[in-house]
């Protein structure tokens, strides 16, 4: 039998690799860059799990309910059941590999995080992702030393090898030598979100280009809920990307305003007198959009933190202040900061079952590239959890299917020059920018049929010119995203249609994008009932 091939070495890929290794199954861990460079290191806020250390009578059922409600009943309840029940164990395991979570009296401290009724988010100051990653990378290194995990850390996914509808391996390219190799065996995709589809518009890394998802889509892998993009309301534009301004800035008293008739209008405070600036992310983002569109207002929303006490700057938001001064030359203590919504998370992606199997045999997907757990909106702190749990679940499903754990072939496939690999040529950055612009025209915070159709038309224009394979795949993925948003004629979670502003029960279904014989169609699948205990 061949080693298992994992594409992506962020939290989900590492989690899968470690689980396989612990169970005596060797794997190849393939990634464009080292794990230290994966987007997972950027996570700041924390990871959710009902550890119930804060005396609030929390339990996994509460976590389940908050997750399902946050996802507006679009997530698979049986998958979420496993996720939330597994969460405390995952955090304990992280503690067991030495993650220095914030502690008090020997117990992990949990904090409040958006959309959750109880304190449930474990954190390591303001760098939770980086600190968790360092411990998980060390754990993987142990298995690299024993040979169970073999790293290919400057290697690019080119395409899946598929035979008779079943995945037989993956073709990769060594980005240093330029040579290709075919790695045979089961494949787990853990390649992260679709940042590269929106260059400069997301809070994530440039490394996750979206090419993996675009390619496998064209190879027949079904994608789900592609219209579900999470916008974070407060990001600032820095060179080449959107930089997250943590929710804590508003939690500590930051206020949003826009200029109207020469005056500052604190619109959130007027419109939502109760929760004010602390309304859920999607509501804030949408309101920002509406006031900007309002003819009487300016076109820039500001985050005003000038009233925050000295103590808060010193003890709670010092990192944030330093960052804003560095990147924007604005001192948020004395001047308002221009903010805009940025794309922060992709709830949609490769469609999987509860065991992270895709529609193609022997192909799995986990982490942000997969469509699982988060439904129509993700709770902060649930994605690192989903990545760790998802990677582990995929690995376990594979392990269960292996009868004989000895006799893994240790032969490394040969790296060769291939001059005619059609999927190797990069998409032109000019085209990528064009596609992004078209997509943003239809997939903004507030959507409607007109804009979506308009974008589809423009995309059809792009399709007419001769394109290389990757360019064709990216255009196909863009079509699938727009069609997914067009077909869902309701508003739910991150998907807001001003022409259908209400939730519609008949759309409480997973939207699936299928690429069949060069044609894209959108289908819907019922959400299963939660199995009783």
């Amino acid at each position, binding site marked *: 039998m061949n080693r298992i091939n994992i594409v992506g070495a962020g939290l989900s890929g590492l989690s899968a690799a470690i689980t396989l290794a612990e169970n005596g199954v060797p794997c190849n861990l393939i990634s464009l860059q080292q794990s*230290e*460079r994966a987007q997972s290191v950027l996570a700041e806020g924390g990871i959710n799990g009902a550890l119930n250390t804060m005396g609030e009578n929390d339990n996994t059922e509460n976590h389940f309910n908050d997750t399902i409600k946050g996802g507006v009943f679009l997530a698979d309840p049986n998958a979420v059941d496993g996720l939330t029940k597994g969460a405390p164990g995952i955090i304990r395991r992280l503690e067991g590999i030495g993650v220095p979570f914030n502690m008090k009296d020997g117990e992990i401290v949990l904090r409040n995080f958006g959309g959750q009724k109880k304190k449930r988010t474990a954190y390591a100051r303001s760098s939770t992702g980086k600190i968790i990653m360092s411990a998980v990378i*060390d*754990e993987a290194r142990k298995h690299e030393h024993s040979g169970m995990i073999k790293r290919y850390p400057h290697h690019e996914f080119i395409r899946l090898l598929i035979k008779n509808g079943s995945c037989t391996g993956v073709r990769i390219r060594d980005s240093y030598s330029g040579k290709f190799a075919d790695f045979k065996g089961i494949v787990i995709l853990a390649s992260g979100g679709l940042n590269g589809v929106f260059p400069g518009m997301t809070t994530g890394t440039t490394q996750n280009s979206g090419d993996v998802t675009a390619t496998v889509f064209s190879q027949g892998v079904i994608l789900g809920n592609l219209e579900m993009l999470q916008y974070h309301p407060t990001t600032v534009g820095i060179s080449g990307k959107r930089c997250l301004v943590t929710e804590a800035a508003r939690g500590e008293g930051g206020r949003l305003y826009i200029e109207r008739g020469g005056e500052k209008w604190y619109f959130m405070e007027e419109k939502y007198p109760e929760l004010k600036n602390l309304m859920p992310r999607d509501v804030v983002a949408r309101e920002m959009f509406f006031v900007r569109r309002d003819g009487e207002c300016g076109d820039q929303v500001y985050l005003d933190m000038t009233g925050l006490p000295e103590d808060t700057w010193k003890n709670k938001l010092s990192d944030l202040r330093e960052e804003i001064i560095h990147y924007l030359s604005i001192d948020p203590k004395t001047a308002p900061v221009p903010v805009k919504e940025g794309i922060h998370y992709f709830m949609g992606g490769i469609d999987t079952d509860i065991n992270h199997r895709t529609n193609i045999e022997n192909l799995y997907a986990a982490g942000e590239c997969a469509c699982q757990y988060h439904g129509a909106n993700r709770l902060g702190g649930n994605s690192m959890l989903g990545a760790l749990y998802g990677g582990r679940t995929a690995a376990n499903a594979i392990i269960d299917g292996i009868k004989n754990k000895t006799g893994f072939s240790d032969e490394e496939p040969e790296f060769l020059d291939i001059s005619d690999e059609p999927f190797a040529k990069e998409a032109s950055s000019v085209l990528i920018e064009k596609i992004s612009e078209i997509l943003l025209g239809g997939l903004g915070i507030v959507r409607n049929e007109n804009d979506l159709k308009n974008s589809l038309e423009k995309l059809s224009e792009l399709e007419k010119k001769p394109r290389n394979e990757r360019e064709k795949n990216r255009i196909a993925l863009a079509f699938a995203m727009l069609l997914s948003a067009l077909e869902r004629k309701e508003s739910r979670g991150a998907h807001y249609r001003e022409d259908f502003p209400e939730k519609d029960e008949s759309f409480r279904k997973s939207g699936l994008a299928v690429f069949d014989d060069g044609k894209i169609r959108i289908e819907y699948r019922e959400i299963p009932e939660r199995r009783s205990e």
Partner: protein
Amino acid sequence: MKIRLDILRRESGETEPYLQSIMFETEDENATVATALSEINKSEGIRDLNGKRVKPIRWECSCLQKKCGACAMVINSHPQLACNARLKDCEKNGCIKIEPLRKFPVVQDLVVDRSVMFENLRLMNVWFNEQTKADEGSAEISYEASRCLQCGCCLEVCPNFYAGSEFFGTSAMVPITRIISELPEAQKKEILKAYREHGYSGCGKSLACRNVCPAGIDIDRLLVNSNAAAVWRRKIGGRNKKK
């Protein structure tokens, strides 16, 4: 702002490096070297100072907010992160010189192969063999040690480090401190030995590495702690773990 970038380019490790000058113009006063490199690469038809068409410049980046270490390079003779290096802070008479890190084999242009850093961590056995738990005493040290980006800037300035040497440098001494801060009894001997052999004994204490770390890691504090355990057999930050 108009800046002339003098970039040390190279087709591969086997060919000779050459300096190429490219003009970059921007309105953005906060633009960084990373901005310049990506903007230049995005433009259609990149030209050098003489108007000759040139190929896109190969370099690595990922987070663009100084959190991943991918974009480390030598800018005006100082190793630093391109995404952290603002043009207005770096330019001298309107010029900025950009070179790849010099302690690693060049792959192409500004991309170097830093595999040796990761291999060294493996050779030092930087991991826990058994379950552990950071307690409140060791958490501080453990946290600080976990922040290393594996960027390699510290190695660039270290007089004692070269690829292949027995001395692994700060980029190894910092992460191993995470393990030392817990000091599991079963691993104690082997970990401290690795630290002494590949860290402490090769370090000339010239402190050249102290001011270059782009993550601002408190290297002194970490190494004082590890030295205490490995050389003086004392524990400062964390505690000794009995199983």
